């Protein structure tokens, strides 16, 4: 296993599948679907193997793959004693405890969404090519250990997503796609500027060996972390005049806030959330599975990986702000979810609410809170994927997901209604299902830091029960309308992903150690970093 470039295999099998699809005639719907499914199942199996092979103890960063990709020599005129001066762009993949579960989540949700996409009625070939490209992009985002590589993968996800929403969505799909692209484009632009500033300052390294002096710019996140925290002689830490590489506190704050906005759009943090409402309602449900299940997680992931871990002192000072933003997300999303008439919007606003829990966990700045944030990411990924899987299957039969138009479906589709109830219960944080663990840990964490903030946020737990039950019961309980009396329950191809997702939701809820074990090293590393960094800079 050590020799196999496992991460590359996982990340690029979908792309390979997309390439194969190019050569399949577009009329061959069955073949296209089969190839696409295989191209998502292989990474799923590999990701499971990856998860199993990950060592819970020792260095948390594992399965490293690093190759120098582009090396641009820079002008070293006037720098006689310098051996070489260059900018290096590395193909650099690895996983740690934070990205490992997200990689697995991506593989799982993608495979399930590929199955759910069998509902798609037109242009299967283009659809699945976009789909697989998107999957490669998502894998890359969670594996990349280099800022530019991360940015590249991040951008790769935008393009196919734009087409997936714009072509295969509902009536207002084009508007939704445009809004998606503009919003995320702005986010990406801000992110790029922030990254450039980081590389231009922290990314500058001088390596001195016996007779060589090497200057380099690099986006390697470990190099950057090293320069920032472990090397007091690094240029970035030298507050001398005429040192263009020094990062003042003001600059750190600027970059931190830029990252907060850039990833806050994706997460989404109030008030940057309106774009995702449209995507939730207009995109095809199988794509919303991906969008809500994984793409939103990229925002949180980026915020942790770059915002919090590069600028712990700033993040820690902003903790109260983050916590309050989290509570606003929780309550604002929940209150709006309560009054929606369209089930998809209930779910969209509930996603905002649930992402607030992630922020809350982050803002706690202790092991419990950080762990809660990660649990919540994974759990919400599973739950929202399951919910939109159901939305797709129900819409196929009823052609509406308006709460007022539905009712009593438990009579005609008891299996799906049962699964919907389980998904709803998971979403409202019922113990025994995955949603509870993230919520519990995040609130435990926040309670240790800001009790009042956590207590106010806990009101969201009540509201979650209100909007989930209102939504789910309007659909499945009550008298059934005549036109839905004859609809058929889930087919096997629909039931398999439902049962699979429920199984994982149950597994996480009943035995959370499966996730908390591999997380430990990474979380405690992060915790130490946060405390030491915040200690000697802020204190």
């Amino acid at each position, binding site marked *: 296993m050590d020799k196999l470039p496992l991460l590359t295999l996982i990340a690029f099998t979908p792309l390979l599948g997309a390439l194969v699809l190019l050569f399949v005639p577009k009329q061959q719907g069955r073949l296209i679907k089969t190839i696409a499914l295989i191209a998502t199942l292989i990474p799923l199996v590999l990701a499971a193997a990856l998860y199993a092979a990950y060592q819970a103890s020792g260095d948390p960063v594992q399965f490293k793959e690093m190759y120098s990709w582009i090396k641009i020599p820079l002008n070293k005129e006037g720098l006689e004693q310098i051996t070489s001066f260059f900018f290096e762009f590395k193909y650099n993949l690895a996983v740690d405890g934070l990205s490992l579960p997200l990689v697995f989540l991506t593989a799982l949700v993608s495979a399930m969404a590929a199955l759910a996409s069998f509902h798609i009625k037109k242009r299967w070939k283009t659809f699945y090519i976009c789909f697989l490209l998107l999957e490669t992009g998502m894998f890359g985002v969670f594996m990349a250990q280099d800022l530019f590589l991360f940015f590249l993968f991040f951008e790769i996800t935008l393009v196919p997503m734009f087409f997936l929403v714009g072509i295969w969505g509902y009536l207002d799909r084009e508007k939704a796609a445009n809004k998606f692209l*503009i919003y995320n484009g702005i986010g990406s632009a801000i992110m790029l500027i922030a990254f450039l500033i980081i590389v231009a300052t922290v990314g500058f390294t001088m390596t001195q060996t016996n007779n060589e002096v090497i200057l380099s710019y690099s986006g390697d996140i470990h190099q950057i972390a090293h320069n920032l925290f472990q090397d007091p002689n690094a240029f970035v830490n030298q507050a001398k005049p005429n040192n263009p590489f020094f990062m003042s506190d003001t600059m750190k704050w600027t970059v931190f806030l830029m990252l907060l906005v850039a990833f806050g759009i994706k997460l989404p943090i*109030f*008030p940057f*959330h*309106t*774009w995702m409402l449209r995507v939730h309602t207009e995109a095809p449900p199988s794509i919303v599975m991906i969008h809500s299940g994984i793409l939103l997680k990229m925002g949180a992931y980026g915020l942790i990986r770059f915002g919090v871990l590069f600028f712990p002192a700033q993040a820690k000072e902003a903790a109260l702000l983050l916590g309050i933003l989290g509570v606003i997300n929780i309550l*604002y999303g929940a*209150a*709006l979810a*309560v*009054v929606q008439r369209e089930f998809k919007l209930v779910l969209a606003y509930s996603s905002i609410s649930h992402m607030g829990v992630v922020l809350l966990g982050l803002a706690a700045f*202790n*092991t*419990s809170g950080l*762990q809660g944030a990660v649990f919540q990411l994974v759990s919400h990924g599973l739950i929202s994927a399951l919910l939109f899987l159901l939305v797709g299957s129900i819409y196929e039969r009823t052609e509406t997901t308006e709460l007022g138009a539905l009712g*009593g479906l*438990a*009579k005609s589709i008891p299996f799906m209604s049962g699964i919907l109830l389980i998904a709803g*219960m998971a979403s409202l944080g*019922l*113990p*025994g299902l995955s949603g*509870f*663990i993230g919520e*519990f*840990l995040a*609130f*435990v964490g926040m*309670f*240790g830091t800001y009790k009042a903030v*956590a*207590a106010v946020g*806990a*009101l969201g*737990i*009540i*509201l979650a*029960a*209100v909007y989930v*039950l*209102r939504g789910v*019961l309007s659909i*499945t*309980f*009550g*008298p*059934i309308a005549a036109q839905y009396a004859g609809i058929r329950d889930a087919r096997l191809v629909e039931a398999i992903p439902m049962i699979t997702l429920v199984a994982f939701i149950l597994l996480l809820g009943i*035995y*959370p*150690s499966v996730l*908390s*074990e591999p997380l*430990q090293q990474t*979380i*405690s590393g992060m*915790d130490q970093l946060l405390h030491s960094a915040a200690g000697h800079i802020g204190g």
Partner: protein
Amino acid sequence: MANDFTSYAWLVPLFPLLAFLVLIAAGRQLREAGAYISIVAMLASFVLALLIFFERLGHTTDYTWNQLKWLTIGDFQLNMGFEVTNLNALMLVIVTLVSLLVNIYSKGYMHGDERVNVFFSYIQLFSFAMLGLVISVNVLELYIFWELVGVCSFLLVGFWYFKPEARAAAKKAFIVTRVGDVGLFLGMLLLFWYMPGHSLDFSAIHNAFSQGKIDPSIATWIAILVFVGAMGKSGQFPLHTWLPDAMEGPTPISALIHAATMVAAGVYLVARTMDIFQASPDAMLVVAYVGGFTAIFAATIGTAQNDIKRVLAYSTVSQLGYMMMALGLGAATAGIFHLFTHAFFKALLFLGAGSVIHAVHTQDIREMGGLAGKMKITAWTFAIGALALSGIVPLSGFWSKDAILSAAFEHNQLLFWVGLIAAFFTAFYMARLFFLVFAGKPRSDAHAHESPAPFTFPLVVLAVLAVIAGFVFTPFNGWLGHWLGDHAEAETANWTVMILSTLAGLLGIGLGYVMYGKNSVSRDIVAGNAPWLYTLVYRKYYIDELYDVVFVRGLRLIGKAFELFDIYIVDGIVRLCSAAVVGIGRLGLRLQNGQVQTYGLATLLGLLILALALAGRRFFHLG
């Protein structure tokens, strides 16, 4: 001191879980067998619970096992496991026994329902969760099962999902109890941060609080928050509104969940964490007063309801209030004792009511009457239950109520009188219920007849228990108190209390008899003379209406306001930005109009700006 059976206590919840899994997986194929699988599983649990109970008769030390690694938080390891104390062992017996009888009863009651196996599977899941709750080793484990029983209650209340009332009731039950659950949740978080070593184990809590290691003000906070959780589950005012509505569920469920077991979980929780409460006199006072108020408040409502199950439901709320009051007064044994006797006679009353409903197909007591002759066993057992609830000597209810009232008499005179008046109302509404249902002439033309054996067998068993269960703890025999390790209980007979409570009971029954049995006093005496009072009580003091206006509509209003904010302000700014970009674009477009003059002007302007900038830079540089 052998623990041969006790060490297998974890099996008690596991049998029903197993049955649940079987029923869920193969429910449709099983048909009739579903009921038998459930009964056998419950019987196994009951037998094991009994064995554990007998094994523990001589014990005073607790049996604890908590080695199941569940979750790691930093350096802290959260383990799961189970614990058997004498209190737990008693609860195991109560829950398995009532559950077993209800399973048997349901075989008759739910016969012919096409989803009967779903019903049985839910009961099994509930029993699993309730038994798990009872033997939980730490607060988090208890909370997990606590929520799980809530969900089972929700599922069973909404079992007839196609009825809009059932849907509303199920939703309400879940949401109102969730309000309480958040209290428990926050209490648990406080415990986590203030307990030495973050331990949530009950044994650790006992040690920390009884040795005064926790700051009293923190103890007050924790105790109040935990109590809020208990209030939700046990239907204490002001979180009581869900329990009467929960009567939309099938009647066996009302007996099992909403009378004997789950609603008592709040009382159990307070008893289990008694050390926290004892560390805070303020919290104890809150518990006592909330309990006392609930007892009298719900009892008065019970006098004006016409739905047989709702009368019983308000009675349950009221009796749970008694239990809380006892705990708040520091009389833990009395509270648990009342929980114990109440489980039997209230389950009996509900199952009796189910038998009646099964026979006459209505729940309105004004349409019943004269059933005593047609349904002898139901009538007799119901009468025993009603007398036990009314606190008539020597039935079980008398002894447990007496224990509570004696404690109140000693510690808090006000609460004693509250309890006594509530006891009068209790006897009155039960007499009213009994005479309206079983005495007089039939008021509808339904051909009622006695229910079959699956109904009557549990009724008889419960009736026997309702008679004798009280003898385990009387002023003349303090066995239960000793066994539960509560040495504070006075064993001296308080004759004043006994006489007063008997008088209150007899008075209530007498009044009920003259109004509804003999009809010598007009039934409308209150409704006629003080219609506002009657309406106030009949409408349950308008609490539901109040909540509807304040919370339901309030929340909707906030949601709507936020929605407008979201559409017009948040998204409005976004649209404004995009409109601004488009506007600038249009401006640029207008510049490209093909007229050389315009281009020339633009060029000139540009040149001017550049020149100025250059000059300015030099100027500043030199300066």
